[in-house]
């Protein structure tokens, strides 16, 4: 039986890397609906999952896709779906359901240019805030942002691990450029890859909700008589919708289990960050222009550094506050009309000027030259 790809270097597409990583992470169920630019994930898993004893099914829409994933997860399988903006919108109700019912699952969103059908084949980073606030009610999602094919692989595995650790849905928020480009990728040997599986209950356990920070998760069919509901529920999982305390405790615990562990979840890559005067905060495909920009800036005598966000949510507020202390200016390039920019502005709270650099349309990336122009202009303004 072919399980994960053997240790080797491959030339692979981002979406394929995501699909292969899902298999490595132990994914046994994929349900999806065709949508550009995420379809290759479904196609690849349709072929590969059955070879590893897993199930891949095409559902009638994205509502059904995530519902099936949730059902599969409660049946004990690690499960995933993959989509893009319009499908991601349709999944929002069930993302809230997965959060409320503490159902581990992975939702891949390969961002394309919206709103609506927009430019369906072109790259964008417009779903950042939807990933944060898309479902109704109070919640805290975990959202990861890869910037290379290698990271599509690594962060897909991490998405499963985080979902299983925290018993929560995890969103892999990639973009069309990262998903469709082909790059060299190294698959590590399986003993070097950390795989986390959900905590299962003991035979005597009777409560699977609201008893501890992350309760153990039974599977249906294992004799636990578990009742799963998206309504406010008590520790047995029974609907409990009249009591303000039960709701408060439940939703605050669900939010806090992510927030209190934010340090374990948050991940970023810093470059030349000590004592630089300009900090560029970026993520996803946009971050690929940053290294060259820093080199170009150096030649002009400007000392710039970079924070690349690998997790967008929870947002790395403390990191940014600490690292921004000595900076004269923070630049936030994004392929949207300001989303993470506002988070950075809120985080530094007026202590450092924050400059947005935004570009949308046609999937055109922000180039190092464009970034350099903004850096030079802002340095001149400071001086």
């Amino acid at each position: 039986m072919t399980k994960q790809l053997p240790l080797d270097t491959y030339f692979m597409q981002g979406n394929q890397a995501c699909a292969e990583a899902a298999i490595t992470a132990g994914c046994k169920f994929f349900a999806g609906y065709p949508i550009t630019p995420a379809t290759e994930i479904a196609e690849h898993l349709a072929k590969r999952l059955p070879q590893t004893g897993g199930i891949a099914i095409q559902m009638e829409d994205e509502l059904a896709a995530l519902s099936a994933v949730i059902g599969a997860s409660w049946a004990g399988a690690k499960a995933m779906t993959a989509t893009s903006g319009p499908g991601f919108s349709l999944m929002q109700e069930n993302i809230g359901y997965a959060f409320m019912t503490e159902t581990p699952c992975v939702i891949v969103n390969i961002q394309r240019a919206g709103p609506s059908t927009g430019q369906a084949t072109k790259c964008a980073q417009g779903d950042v805030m939807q990933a944060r606030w898309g479902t109704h009610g109070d919640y805290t999602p975990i959202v990861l942002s890869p910037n290379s094919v290698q990271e599509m692989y690594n962060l897909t595995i991490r998405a499963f691990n985080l979902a299983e650790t925290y018993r929560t849905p995890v969103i892999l928020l990639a973009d069309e450029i990262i998903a469709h480009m082909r790059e060299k990728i190294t698959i590590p040997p399986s003993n070097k890859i950390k795989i986390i599986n959900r905590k299962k209950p003991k035979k005597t356990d009777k409560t699977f909700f609201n008893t501890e920070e992350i309760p153990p998760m039974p599977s249906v069919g294992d004799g636990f008589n578990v009742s799963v509901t998206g309504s406010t529920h008590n520790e047995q999982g029974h609907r409990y919708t009249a009591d303000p305390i039960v709701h408060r405790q439940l939703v605050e615990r669900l939010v806090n289990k992510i927030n209190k562990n934010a340090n374990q979840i948050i991940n970023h890559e810093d470059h030349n960050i000590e004592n630089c005067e300009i900090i560029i905060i970026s993520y996803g495909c946009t971050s690929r222009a940053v290294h060259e920009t820093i080199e170009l800036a150096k030649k002009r005598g400007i000392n710039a550094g970079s924070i690349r966000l690998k997790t967008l949510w929870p947002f790395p507020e403390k990191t940014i506050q600490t690292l921004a202390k000595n900076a004269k200016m923070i630049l936030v390039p994004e392929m949207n009309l300001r989303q993470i920019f506002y988070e950075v502005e809120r985080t530094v709270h007026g202590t450092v000027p924050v400059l947005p650099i935004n570009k949308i349309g046609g999937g055109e990336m922000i180039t190092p030259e464009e970034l350099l122009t903004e850096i030079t202009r802002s340095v001149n303004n400071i001086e």
Partner: protein
Amino acid sequence: MNKFSIRKYLRDMPLPFCPGCGNPTVMSCFLRAVHELGYEDLRKFVFCSGIGCAAWIPSPYFKADSIHTTHGRSIPAATGVKLVRPTLNIVVFGGDGDLVGIGLSHLIHAARRNLDITVIMVNNMIYGMTGGQMAPTTPFKAKTTTTPYGNFEHPFDTTSLIVAAGACYAARWTTFHVEQLREAMKKALTTKGFAFIEAVSQCPTAFGKRVGLKTTKELLQWFKENSVPLQEAERTAEKDLAGKIVVGEFVSRELPTLTEIVHETIKEATNDA
């Protein structure tokens, strides 16, 4: 066989249904069917239900695993459960609003796929939990809170639709026909493949009082007098069937199931790889 005791299958909790509701009848028919099939408990069952009064029949009252999903999405959730755990009996309970309104697409597709589950639709012809709004099953001209001048639309013949979509078993009975309903449930539960039961049921609170049938007795009388057996309906002109409830077993056939095909494919793919 042991004597039937409904409490054996139920959690010790008060039921949420209004006085005179048909849901306890459907619940009782189902649990009797389960008992008569020899199941001493519900360990081999997983119940999926969506939103609406009928979704409360299994969850959390049945001593069993239950997944109470978002509105209309019980069938896709059941799809995930069944494919991963093919040996479990998956039963979906839902109302007409949940399964034919917001969730219709999933119902048709599950029948087309021949997903090996049983779907029990309690058709009370109204959105009851929200207080009596028009449903896709509400009779023509019936007055509801959202059709104060009478319903402009004609109701779905859901059971016929599901037969056309490829179900292996489909039957319609009313809560007046408890014996037939229970027997149909037994047949549905033992059917290999997609099985569908439409239980036409009374809602005196949100439906009956708006259409002039204020009590459970009047509603059951209406079911009795308006029900036409399928064989008789086939000989009757369509115009004479307007407003009637055609009851009986619409289909009973054997076809390869989705679960079988998927797991056969996995076996082949694993060997090839």
